[in-house]
């Protein structure tokens, strides 16, 4: 598994039947829940059960998706549109994709399923002490037996969604993202039957991020496993993930949690919630804040501590999204939004650092010969 967690679709597990839950809170998920709730939601469940602070939420499961598709009664039409497509013919793929997605997004969700989702959303709002809690709606996918990680960044994520109608609408949009042109082309190329894939959707309390970003539990440029590298900017993490700004960068020693390097960049834009429009918008960072460190040192240390815990739990280098919630008090405001295995360095076969010297003496001699480079 691992890298494939980034792909955005899931093949229906053979054992999945009508008794499987249609909605499921994160804390009831774990790493074995991937066929039911996808990679993202199962890893959030796993994190919660490890003791890492994660914004609460629930998943509409693959069984929920399957029920929706069944009840919408569009399977035959979808199937017909997909017939005879060639994975190279992008124009036709795009056209089919558009038609299928419109179809999915316009179909009502059955009362029964809508009630289940609405009840979960209500419980989540109660738990967050917020009426109609703003949430992120994101597709949670897995394809354990699909090779490659080429779908990175493809998942649809809708931020700052409030109210059950909007939530339902965006869940459908996530469902429909199973039929992006790229996803269809990929399945055709790989020979996977379209009717055997499914998707889950995560509905998660929106961290009202004062600052957010990503971190790796190794150095992305050297593969050094003894550090945690954090990128951060004000606002939601989108600006960091998308590369729209040069974020602040911190290198933290994994063993001791010292901050060993800090680079404060000029951060010109950030994403924040527009409370009138009730959505995430890009805004200019006020000039006086552009060159200010976007995370305080205590937060850096806490994030690194969390990252270390997550890596230890998974037993491998991880790639983590996080946020500092501005509505919550210090001490309980640092959240992990997502954690997945790091793929670039982890898939590389690293050459040993030793030259094969057997004793300390051999090593000393061979390296004396090379010397210490000054420049």
């Amino acid at each position, binding site marked *: 598994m691992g890298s494939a967690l980034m792909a955005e679709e899931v093949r229906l597990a053979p054992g999945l039947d009508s008794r499987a839950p249609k909605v499921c809170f994160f804390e009831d998920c774990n790493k074995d829940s991937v066929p039911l709730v996808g990679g993202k939601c199962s890893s959030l469940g796993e994190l919660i059960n490890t003791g890492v602070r994660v914004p609460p939420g629930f998943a509409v499961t693959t069984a929920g998706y399957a029920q929706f598709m069944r009840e919408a009664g569009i399977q035959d039409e979808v199937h017909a549109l997909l017939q005879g497509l060639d994975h190279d013919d992008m124009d036709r793929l795009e056209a089919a994709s558009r038609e299928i997605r419109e179809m999915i997004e316009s179909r009502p969700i059955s009362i029964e399923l809508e009630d289940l989702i609405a009840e979960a959303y209500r419980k989540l709002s109660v738990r967050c002490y917020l009426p109609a809690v703003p949430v992120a709606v994101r597709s949670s996918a897995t394809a354990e037996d699909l090779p490659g990680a080429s779908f990175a960044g493809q998942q649809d994520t809708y931020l700052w969604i409030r109210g059950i109608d909007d939530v339902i609408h965006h869940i459908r949009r996530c469902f429909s993202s199973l039929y992006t042109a790229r996803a269809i082309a990929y399945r055709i190329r790989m020979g996977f039957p379209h009717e055997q894939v499914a998707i889950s959707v995560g509905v998660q309390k929106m961290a009202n991020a004062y600052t957010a970003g990503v971190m790796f539990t190794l150095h992305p440029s050297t593969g050094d496993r003894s550090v945690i590298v954090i990128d951060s900017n004000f606002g939601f993490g989108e600006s960091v993930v998308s590369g729209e700004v040069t974020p602040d960068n911190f290198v933290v*020693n994994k063993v001791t949690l010292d901050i*060993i390097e800090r680079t404060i960049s000029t951060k010109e834009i950030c994403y924040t919630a527009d409370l009138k429009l009730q959505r995430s918008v890009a805004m200019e960072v006020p000039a006086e804040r552009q060159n200010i460190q976007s995370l305080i040192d205590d937060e850096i240390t806490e994030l690194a501590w969390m990252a270390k815990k997550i890596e230890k739990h998974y037993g491998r280098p991880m790639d983590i999204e996080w946020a500092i919630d501005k509505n919550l008090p210090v001490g309980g405001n640092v959240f992990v939004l997502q954690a997945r295995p790091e793929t670039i360095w982890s898939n590389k076969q690293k050459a040993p650092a030793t030259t094969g010297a057997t004793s300390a003496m051999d090593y000393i001699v061979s390296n004396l010969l090379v010397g210490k480079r000054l420049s």
Partner: protein
Amino acid sequence: MKFPVPHDVKGKTIPGTEGWELMYPYHYQFVTDDPERNQYEKDTFWFYDGLHYPEPLYPFDTIWDEAWYLALSQFNNRIFQVPPVRGVDHRIINGYVYISPVPVKNPDEIGQRVPNFMERAGYYYKNWDELEAKWKTKMEGTIAELEALPIPRLPEVEDLKVVTDGVGESTAYHLIKNYDDLINLGIRCWQYHFEFLNLGYAAYVFFMDFTQKLFPSIPLQRVTQMISGIDVIMYKSDDELKALAKKAVALEVDDVVTAHREWADVKAALAGQRHGDEWLAAFEKARYPWFNISSGTGWFHTDRSWNDNLNLPLDGIQTYIQKLRDGQEIDRPMEAVRAERDRVTAEYRDLIDNDQDRKQFDELLGCARTVFPYVENHLFYVEHWFHSVFWNKMREVAAIMQEHGLIAEIEDIWYLRRDEIKQALWDIVTAWATGVTPRGTKTWPAEIEWRKGVMQKFREWAPPPAIGIAPEVIQEPFTIVLWGVTNSSLSAWASVQEVADPDSITELKGFPASPGTVEGRARVCRSAEEIRDLQEGEILVAPTTSPSWAPAFAKIKACITDVGGVMSHAAIVCREYGMPAVVGTGHSTRVIKTGMTLRVDGSTGLVTIVQ
């Protein structure tokens, strides 16, 4: 990186010092009259050895520079044959010593040296503990000879026994002979100093180097932390002060011990009291050999020992008594240091991806831990114990020269080279034998007066940290570890050098030597005397620190030095106490003034002058 050309620097003679070159050995000079040597000097990178010479060198004190020039170079080049590097070459400008490791340039020759080095150095690494035990015996024997060496005064008439025992030798003969013996013991002691040292440093350098290959971002302080927490003799003197502080409290004489700043007053107040005498006896017992510890690096005659100035250990004892009264723990937190060392080592080891690397890591770490006690302990035997006794023996020689009118003050002797002293002693003994006045009574006092003026002008001159052309690679383990010569330290030095006005500098970059960030008031201390003024919670700014400064670390909350690498004294002690240190800043004592507010970041090596 561009540094000044050596001959240009030397060419600008400070007015009034013309002819200073004669105060130092002739082969230490940068030259312009020999095209070959001149070209070599131009093409070579020289850096100022401020670690050992924060002040210009007195002509006599050149002895230790010559001693290590010989000893280090011979062990590198003629005894162990370190394959790619010969010795370390030396030059002097205005009393400041510049050094440069000499590479073996021909690859064939490097290859030929390898088997020799493998056999010889390999033998030392393999039999380290046994050879080190032998070393200790040789060193203690040398110190015992030194302590027993008489410096006889010339009598008006020789004792009758010279006649009745048929001795056939005069005191004059013993004076010049024992002077030679004194010098030779010093040179011998320095032979031993380097017997193991470079091998020890090599073990460090390559453990560091390997760990950095595994973890490119690992701070050096974390590498050295893996070798910490090993008991060494070098810290025993400080432990003695702590024991005396505890004893003073236990015997309830602590009020008397802390009542005066001068040792003589404390001693007088304690004498005759029952517990007072008991404590004084403990104090006397601790003095030998543990107060044979220099208040500086031990390299200069000006670095007096605790035994020479008992106010210094008294100040340390008083600091510790105050800590005890405040209910604080004064012992070095060795258990905690070891526990943290083991945790850090185990965590890094777990992050190593393959078995081969883990095995290599274990081997190199084991080797580095084996050599560690020697690397620290040689300092106590040589620079502290031997030197403390040696300087005072030289003062006995000076007393004779003063008695015969060749110098006005005892401390004037340091303005003469050791061969000039030998000549002067010949002048004295022959004049004494003959019954005439030594010629030196007219020549030396005037010469010394002039040299004093020259030395003063040297002190006012700031030596550039490096001159010449920086090489791409350094292979000499010593220069890397001890002086912290790396690309980043050189560029930091170069950039500060370019600033004409030190007052405009608000940031200094050095080696991150011990992690943590604090803000506080600066206290610039250039000598052990000055550390007595340190206030609780200040940030110590020093050229470099030495083990006799240990009590100061109980007061401060961070330390900054001009010179030193991650294995320097300040770095080691700060890590033990868990306080930030930035070492090897090049210029901190020149730029920072007492009273400034500083921010010290020991994780990144940045010192900021806040105010």
